[in-house]
């Protein structure tokens, strides 16, 4: 049945098939080996990390964290513990990784003098040098790792390197550098709000707002200054910050933004004005209503629900009675529901003018069990 094995006489396609199948077979065994060794390595690393963490926490608790400042730690005791941790650090990369991670998490969780002790220990262990190397790395994710360390340890010695990284080509590196700089003693903290040209994603904005939350709010600038930026994501970020820090002096600048050409920006401005209860914006919001898209119209109605006034209520009631689109009716009903009963009595809704849909909407917002998720 079988011909003698003369592979030289095989057609090319059969020869290729033969070679590929042998290669595939060899690669199957290699892959199985990798799976096995990956398992072993992961298990070993996990064990080493757990053991390292135990040692580090024990040493820190026993010899350092019970003192209010490093000066209080007896010199010999301090020397012993630093030497021990340095020795272990030199022996293993895993230990260094865990040591950095543990000190960073302590620095985040602890405050006051204890935080200063942690930061000083970080320097004594020369982990700062590792961080500096990371900042100089060519790999973007290593740079970000370094920037995180600088940010959490408040390493002011690295400011110049961090400033260099604010000009990095990678947006993620730049944003991490901005976040680090916000927490360091730098005069260029908010320069990025003027300079950044690329779109900041929502994730970037969250990183930056988080960094700002960690500093004294008196140090924060007036974010209205940046509302004229040509970078829409910077405008959005600043509006979020204005809202977060309740910077009421920004209301007039926000009102000017109501004529911004970008639909998303206008939507956010409308929302912000409502959340800031900016009653001076009431008239402009009402005037703006006919010119806006459906989404922005619903947002105007919801914002007027925040600016509780008789004019708003009359406007909302009118839209609720005359509105045709469900989203308009829904937003108007939701907004009307936020008004106090006494005010609502002044603008009664004639139920004979309402259809079934409108009646259901009123009942919907009067039902306390439906309140989850509404404004």
């Amino acid at each position: 049945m079988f011909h003698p094995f003369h592979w030289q006489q095989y057609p090319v396609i059969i020869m290729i098939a033969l070679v590929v199948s042998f290669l595939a077979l060899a690669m199957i065994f290699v892959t199985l080996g990798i799976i096995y060794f990956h398992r072993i390595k992961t298990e070993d690393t996990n064990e080493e990390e757990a053991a390292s963490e135990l040692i580090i926490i024990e040493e820190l608790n026993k010899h350092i964290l019970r003192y209010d400042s490093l000066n209080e730690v007896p010199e010999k005791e301090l020397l012993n513990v630093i030497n021990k941790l340095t020795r272990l650090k030199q022996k293993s990369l895993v230990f260094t990784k865990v040591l950095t991670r543990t000190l960073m998490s302590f620095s985040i969780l602890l405050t006051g003098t204890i935080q200063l002790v942690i930061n000083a220990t970080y320097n004594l262990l020369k982990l700062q040098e590792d961080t500096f190397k990371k900042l100089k790395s060519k790999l973007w994710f290593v740079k970000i790792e370094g920037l995180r360390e600088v940010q959490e340890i408040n390493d002011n010695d690295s400011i110049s390197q961090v400033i260099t990284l604010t000009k990095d080509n990678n947006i993620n590196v730049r944003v991490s550098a901005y976040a680090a700089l916000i927490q360091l003693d730098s005069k260029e903290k908010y320069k990025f709000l003027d300079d950044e040209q690329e779109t900041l994603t929502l994730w970037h904005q969250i990183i930056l707002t988080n960094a700002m939350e960690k500093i004294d709010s008196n140090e924060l600038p007036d974010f209205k200054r940046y509302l004229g930026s040509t970078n829409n994501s910077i405008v959005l970020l600043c509006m979020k910050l204005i809202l977060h820090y309740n910077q009421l002096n920004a209301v007039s600048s926000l009102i000017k933004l109501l004529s911004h050409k970008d639909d998303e920006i206008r939507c956010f401005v409308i929302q912000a004005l409502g959340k800031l209860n900016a009653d001076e914006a009431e008239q402009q919001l009402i005037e703006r209503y006919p010119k806006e898209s459906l989404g922005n119209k619903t947002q105007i109605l919801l914002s007027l629900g925040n600016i509780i006034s008789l004019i708003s209520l009359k406007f909302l009631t009118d839209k609720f009675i005359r509105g045709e689109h469900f989203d308009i009716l829904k937003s108007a009903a939701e907004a009307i529901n936020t008004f106090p009963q006494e005010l609502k009595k002044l603008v009664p809704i004639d139920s004979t003018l309402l259809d079934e849909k409108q009646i259901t909407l009123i009942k919907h917002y009067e039902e306390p069990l439906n309140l989850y998720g509404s404004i």
Partner: protein
Amino acid sequence: MEAFKEWSHFIFNNAIYYYSVTIMFSYGLLALFSLREIKKYKQKDNLFDYQLLLSSPYLPSISVIAPAFNEGKVILNGLQSFLSLSYPKFEVILVNDGSTDDTLQQLIDEYELVKVDFAYHEVIKTQPVKQIFKSTNPAYSKLVVIDKENGNSKADASNAGINAAIYPLFLCTDVDCILHKDTLIKLVKPFIEEQDRVIASGAAIRISNSCEVKNGYIKKVNAPRQFLPLFQELEYIRAFILGRMAWSSINALMLVSGGLGLFDKDIVIKAGGYNHVSFGEDMELISRMRIYMHDHKLKYKVRYIPESLCWTEVPSDIKIFARQRTRWSKGLAQTLWFHKKVTFNPKYKIFGLLTFPYFILFEWLAPLLEFGGIIYYIYLIITGQINWEFAIILLQFVYSFSVLITITSVLYDEITGIKYSKKSEVFRLCLAAVAEPFVYHPLVLFFSLRGDWFFITNKKLSWGVMTRIGFKKKNKKL
């Protein structure tokens, strides 16, 4: 006769060979793309501070939608896992699709539900909604239960959920799914870190058949022990970790599973919602969303992440398995037929020029050609024309490559994170990969052909009922 012989020789000796080589080459490429994407994801993920995200007020809120039809055995476990998700703001919408068992009564009793006046607006047409319930227990204020008339499809029930959803994103899942508590935060990540608009994201789904489940949580992940679930686990790993990650890396993904997908509600509604006629409503929806984005010249992305966030019970009974696979196959054929205008249409960019042709040539056509090849082999054997030496080499060629691809996906799965506590479970999967082409693949092939046959002959196919074993019963066994 001679002409037919020559023609068939040419087709099966040359064309099919090159076709197979192209499939293998594409699998090889997918493996490389997937590895690159997994590496990129891991690098980014290591730097991602999920705690920071969870405390942020700026995250988009999410509606979790889960349709249920006669799911009395699993409903409470599934719902518990949805309500326990870790995310700043979300609601859970459970759609009782006219169940004839005690699904609704169990919900009413367990969650202290009462009927409420709810402004339900039918943006997408569905079967009538009878009543809407909310819980009187403040601990379950996130829960909305919709009771509607049966629509004979998951699509109809999902659409009712979309109509009731109040948040801009929605997660579509099934009540037999056990979700990881970080599902929402991980799936929302692509939506907030991409500069282009992300319209859908998905993650890997795994098999829960042999897992230990307690109070809606996966207590211990075990590799399936039964025949069919074991091979389905392997198939899922290959599809999710290798295939979809690769397609995602080039923004050419055509499918985000119905069991776990986060969607942009606005785009879903504009695209018309789920198609209740389709048997592959998840794939069909993504296709329609992509077409909508291209038609309106909007930049977008569909993303996948290499994380296992959802565990679902798969059929362990051959009859239910057959029905599921036939349905999937018919669903694929339907989607390709519904949107045939996309094929090789430059307007749809990579979706029209690569994804669609690939799915037609290598997903839909492959079972038909494979079947043709088997028939041809039989014909050659009967007529004594077969060259056994070449036949075995070719068989070994295809076999070794397919085993390599499957084992590579097991490796990728291990790289993304260790799921099984024992090494032996991973090697059981590898062993299954060796047996798969002989014992499991023929079944899949047969049911794919059956699905195509149902599509071509327009034969009626019912959704059927997935008989659940449920977790309580299984826990007792364990």
